[in-house]
């Protein structure tokens, strides 16, 4: 769609990036890489890697290897360069000078160019296109991680402020039992139980008030309002009522997930159009038959929308509720106490687990949605 109005930019981004890579490599060659006086040539492999990177970067402007293989070579060399750069900076923590930063920028520009080239690939095979579309954000993410690592080590940022990804990884793999216990406490107990009860009760409530138009008109505006309120604030009350263990967290999750589910299910049940309802009427179909055969399938896209929103809300609710008091286990508990002890790498490890759990949870709900509402235009369309 956008290609229709794409008016070609006056300058070519790819050429600009390639020029940038070349410039950075040249700067790196002629300046100090690490204090006090190490140059890039003290690490020949590195110099070689970045030399190749510069050549591959400018090959388009120079007019050779203008094909996908050249692009892939660029990506591979960029990855190799990063792989060589990281151990070097680990040996010289906090001693990075202009030459090193020029190399880091060169890597960054090279990855950018690689992503730019990948985005421009025209593939005929649909599954290959899907793979590339998946690879682009992954390459982007890895680039960010590498730059984070280089910056954290190069500047010698203290661990309490921002640990490097490698340190977080070491901490993560080193404290699996603690992380597993926290995950069990927070995710498997509070989140999943609260999510199931909250969404389930909201669904049943929605079906009940759907039979009474009066309640529907009265509750829907209130439900919409409550969805915008900072419900997370009920956490201290729930902790007071239900104690420190997981039931109070599950209660917070129930309350947080209830209203989005209620509002969405009620609107979903109203989604069947007049003609479809008339059709059921001509069959003299009773209330339950219409509900099961027409209105619930019709409401499924709405219900799954709420299930997806709630998958995120549930995790947030459980973690934040733990800030108000827990037994000595749980992701939120760990985050708040380790922050207090300045063990920031442990906090990041916990956040990484939370992110992974949240994404997986969301992903599973999204997969279920594709299976159940396969007929919906939004999903049908994306399958081609």
């Amino acid at each position, binding site marked *: 769609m956008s290609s229709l109005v794409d008016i070609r930019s006056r300058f070519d981004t790819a050429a600009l990036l390639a020029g940038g890579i070349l410039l950075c490599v040249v700067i790196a060659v002629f300046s100090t890489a690490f204090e006090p006086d190490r140059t890039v040539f003290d690490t020949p492999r590195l110099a070689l890697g970045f030399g190749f990177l510069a050549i591959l970067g400018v090959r388009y402007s120079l007019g050779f290897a203008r094909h996908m293989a050249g692009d892939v070579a660029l990506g591979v060399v960029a990855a190799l360069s990063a792989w060589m750069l990281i151990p070097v900076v680990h040996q010289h923590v906090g001693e990075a000078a202009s030459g090193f930063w020029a190399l880091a920028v060169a890597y960054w520009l090279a990855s950018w160019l690689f992503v730019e080239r990948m985005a421009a690939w025209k593939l005929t095979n649909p599954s290959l296109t899907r793979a590339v579309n998946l690879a682009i954000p992954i390459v982007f993410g890895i680039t960010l991680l590498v730059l984070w690592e280089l910056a954290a080590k190069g500047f010698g940022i203290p661990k309490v402020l921002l640990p490097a990804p490698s340190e977080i990884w070491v901490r993560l793999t080193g404290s699996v039992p603690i992380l597993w216990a926290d995950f069990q406490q927070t995710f498997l107990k509070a989140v999943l139980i609260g999510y199931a009860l909250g969404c389930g009760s909201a669904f049943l409530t929605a079906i009940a008030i759907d039979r009474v138009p009066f309640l529907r008109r009265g509750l829907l505006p209130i439900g919409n309002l409550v969805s915008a309120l900072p419900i997370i604030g009920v956490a201290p009350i729930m902790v007071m009522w239900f104690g420190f263990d997981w039931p109070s967290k599950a209660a917070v999750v129930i309350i947080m997930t209830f209203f989005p589910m209620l509002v969405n299910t009620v609107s979903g049940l109203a989604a069947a159009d007049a003609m479809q309802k008339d059709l059921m009427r001509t069959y003299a179909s009773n209330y339950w038959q219409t509900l099961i055969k027409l209105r619930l399938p019709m409401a499924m896209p709405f219900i799954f929308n709420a299930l997806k929103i709630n998958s995120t809300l549930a995790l947030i609710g459980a973690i934040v509720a733990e800030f108000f008091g827990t037994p000595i286990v749980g992701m939120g508990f760990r985050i708040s106490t380790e922050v207090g002890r300045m063990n920031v790498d442990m906090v990041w490890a916990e956040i990484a687990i939370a992110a992974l759990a949240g994404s997986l949870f969301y992903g599973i709900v999204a997969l279920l949605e594709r299976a159940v509402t396969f007929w919906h*235009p939004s999903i049908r369309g994306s399958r081609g």
Partner: protein
Amino acid sequence: MLTASEIEDGLEDAMRKPDPVIDIDNLSLTFETNDGPVHALSDIDLKIEEGDFVSFIGPSGCGKTTLLRVIADLEQPTAGSITVNGVSPEAARLARAYGYVFQAAALYPWRTIAKNVALPLEIMGLSRDEQNRRIARNMELVNLSGFEKKFPWQLSGGMQQRASIARALAVEPDLLLMDEPFGALDEIVRDHLNEQLLQLWAKTNKTVVFVTHSIPEAVFLSSKIVVLCPRPGRIYDVIESDLPRERTLDIRETPQFLKIAHRVREGLKAGHSYED
């Protein structure tokens, strides 16, 4: 006790002709809206006999769809009386006495074509064997055999509408109510479906009530054409067609056909001028 003359009257009635399938007597329907009452239907008198193919034709807003919906018990009249198969429309609906085809196919996208045709049968609580028998028979009747496992969105508009007709026929009603079923289709598909519908009617001898705003369609299909006009919605003319029951598309070129079409057009014009 009945008197002798009453019995004689009754016998005479019974011998003269069978009870009409639909008997509408002095029927009116007024919608209350914010801008005041709208007289959708006013003083409708109409009898539809078994085996008739009746078309309601008229400009938009003349109440032809509303009249069909009254027959189907989708709207309630505010005055007058109506019987379907000798009972109230509601009783007829509860007895699943008719099949209804809407303007759009209204197939459920999450069901396959076969499952869509099975929908009314599931609601009626028929056995699985009976369902399968009826699905096969009616899919064949509308020439959709082989598409059972497809989803509606994988079929063309004309095929979707045929599937919705199969779904209406699967109820095996004696009465078929059709509300501009081919209105959204292009002319070539529409001609084709019109021919198929006529063959179907000839094969099954069902009573059909058909709403349209196309004059050629009404004349080509019908044994009886009811011309309605708006504000208030009322019957302007009822034309008994003398065309033979067996028709092909060529009949549209004959003087007989053109004469009826002309009368329908005159009726529509006269009804329309009323509002100015």
